[in-house]
């Protein structure tokens, strides 16, 4: 998806989060803030109403199996229909927000944007934003697989209600989030007070925006951790470049069934080996792999190759030439459930080109 094309497409932000975490609060903040943008909002019919907006559409969260009935090819049938209907009113809004129920799996929503030709023509998935309740998330991660899915899937996590927990408890819940998904941008908030630029227009699914694949807490980035309301609990030690975990306030947890796996190679990869391996891996283990991303340096190729995927769906392309002096490092990230780590590592190593 080039910038030129994506610029014309309507960005769609998917708002997930467990019941009561604060999705509606965030949604109303987005809609009421004076940003000059007009939003169409797709809400689930069973959710709270109380949304003040011109264009609100109720959805049924109908998850449809496509083609061979593989669960990795599920899409949101109602969303295809609704986006089609909204496109008839193109020009009346600048962006779309899709709110899902607390029990929803984000994957079918994301896959809708990979599978459906008409959706792809007019809209693009911007980011999956997950609102989490700082007080209750740790509990939900134990008893609700949906909550874990939503954290694992997120590009942006709004960790809300931080005023209701102690600094220790906050460190604990962050540790649990990071054990599942160290790559999402995490923002601590009260009453979902987050800069809207941090949750909207993220281009998280744009191949051109795959810049690096460092864990979020290693990125002392410009758009990280806005605490706009005088509630700094001295989090700064998270932002320094610790190469390992467990220092300072960051507690380390290992989540029993959901992990992320990062692979790295300084030696170039053989595309003839790598592509079939990656496609085979997602075909075989796609049910376990929720998200994948990579920046690749192929042998005798002066351009960076980038890819991203959701379960079995992959998209990839050459992104730009490697810059002079830029280290041609290949990096891959998988977030998933019960990932066969050693097999993935071995398979990846076998793709390194003979020098």
């Amino acid at each position, binding site marked *: 998806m080039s910038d030129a094309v994506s610029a014309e497409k309507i960005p769609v932000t998917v708002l997930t989060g467990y019941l009561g975490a604060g999705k509606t609060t965030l949604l109303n903040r987005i809609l009421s803030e004076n940003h000059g943008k007009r939003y169409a909002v797709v809400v689930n019919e069973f959710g709270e109403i109380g949304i003040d907006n011109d264009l609100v*559409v*109720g959805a*049924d969260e*109908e998850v*449809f*199996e*496509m*083609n061979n*009935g593989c669960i990795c090819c599920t899409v949101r*049938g*109602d969303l*295809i*229909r*609704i986006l089609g*209907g*909204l496109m*008839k*009113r193109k020009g009346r809004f600048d962006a779309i927000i899709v709110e899902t129920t607390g029990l929803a799996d984000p994957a079918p929503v994301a896959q809708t944007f990979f599978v*459906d*030709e*008409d959706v792809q023509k007019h809209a693009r998935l911007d980011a999956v934003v997950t609102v989490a309740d700082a007080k209750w998330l740790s509990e939900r991660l134990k008893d609700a697989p949906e909550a874990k899915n939503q954290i694992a899937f997120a590009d942006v996590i709004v960790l809300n209600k931080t005023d209701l927990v102690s600094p220790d408890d906050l460190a604990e819940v962050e540790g649990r989030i990071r054990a599942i998904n160290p790559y999402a941008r995490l923002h601590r908030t009260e009453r979902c007070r987050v800069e809207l630029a941090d949750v909207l227009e993220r281009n998280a699914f744009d191949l051109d925006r795959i810049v690096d694949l460092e864990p979020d807490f290693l990125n002392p980035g410009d758009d990280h951790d806005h605490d706009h309301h005088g509630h700094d609990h001295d989090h700064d030690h998270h932002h320094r470049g610790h190469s390992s975990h467990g220092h300072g306030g960051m507690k380390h947890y290992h989540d029993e069934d959901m992990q992320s796996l990062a692979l790295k190679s300084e030696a170039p990869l053989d595309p003839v080996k790598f592509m079939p391996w990656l496609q085979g891996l997602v075909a075989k283990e796609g049910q376990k792999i929720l998200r994948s991303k990579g920046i690749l340096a192929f042998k005798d190729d002066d351009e960076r190759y980038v890819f991203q995927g959701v379960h079995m769906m992959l998209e990839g392309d050459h992104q730009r030439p490697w810059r002079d002096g830029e280290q041609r490092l290949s990096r891959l990230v998988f977030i998933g459930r019960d990932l066969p780590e050693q097999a993935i590592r071995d398979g990846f190593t076998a793709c390194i080109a003979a020098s």
Partner: protein
Amino acid sequence: MSGLGAERPERIASVADQVAAIALKAPATAVHFLGERAVFVGSEKTCTLAAPDGTPQPVTVTDGAILCTVSDGMRVVLGCDDGRVVSLDADAAVTTLATDAKRRWIDCVALHKDGTLAWSAGKTAFVRGRDGAEKSWEAPSTVGGLAFAPKGVRLAVAHYGGATLWFPNMTAKPERLDWAGSHLGIAFSPDGRFVVTAMHEPALHGWRLADGRHMRMTGYPARVKSMAWCGGGKLLATSGADCLILWPFGSKDGPMGKEPMMLAPLTTRVSCVAAHPTQDILATGYEDGTVLLVRLPDGAEILARERDGDAIAALGWSASGETLALATEGGAAGLLKIV
């Protein structure tokens, strides 16, 4: 593929210069005829009536989007996103036929020859007979398509996992036709022996109603969005491929085990088909803006619109077959007299 699209090796007869342009304020998504007046249905708010001389008359039918439309030649019925079912007649009169109690989107509409009207909002299909009596039926999922059988008041409802035949005036249990996947468009064959759905996947599915036998019609590169019965009701023409696809329904087995006829190949996909009401001619619109008039069964072609990259969104014939109306996604529209 013959590569005809890039450069036609032989000149074919063209009537493209005889298309009279119609000025629309916004692109049309469908076109119908009420007598000799064409009705271009916009994507929101407005329909434009066009007199035979091309004079346009815009008519506001709703404040919102027009989601679906059907016509029986007497009136155009429109389903809107403000929860209303609206009709428009040749005198430009707009009538609200129904309003959804919850103001849900009206996703599908269908008309029976006898004037019975059907529409759907979410999972609910509604039928209103000529006597005004209204009945409803809950589908297992959101309704994807509605079609009346050619005889009797029987409504086919496409939904996830198949289709259901519902007799609104009888107490009989609706008859379920199962097939995995999401079913959108739906049509009866003109002889009433077959029901065909256009699936969300690039395929059609059919059932022989006598025994429920399945017909899988696959091989399309894109989803089928436009279907038309032709050849005396014995052929089903569809969009979705880089040529006109015609499935044979003349024999008792329908297209089971048969290959479709493939005519008028170009290097772009067919986006729209419309069958001439009396002759074996198919107006065929393509994604590159080409319109061809294709004669059955020999496939002789006449060019009705030159390609310009602006995909054909709608085609429609007047009941007399004397006029073809066409509209593009970009907002161009025209009338072609065939006499």
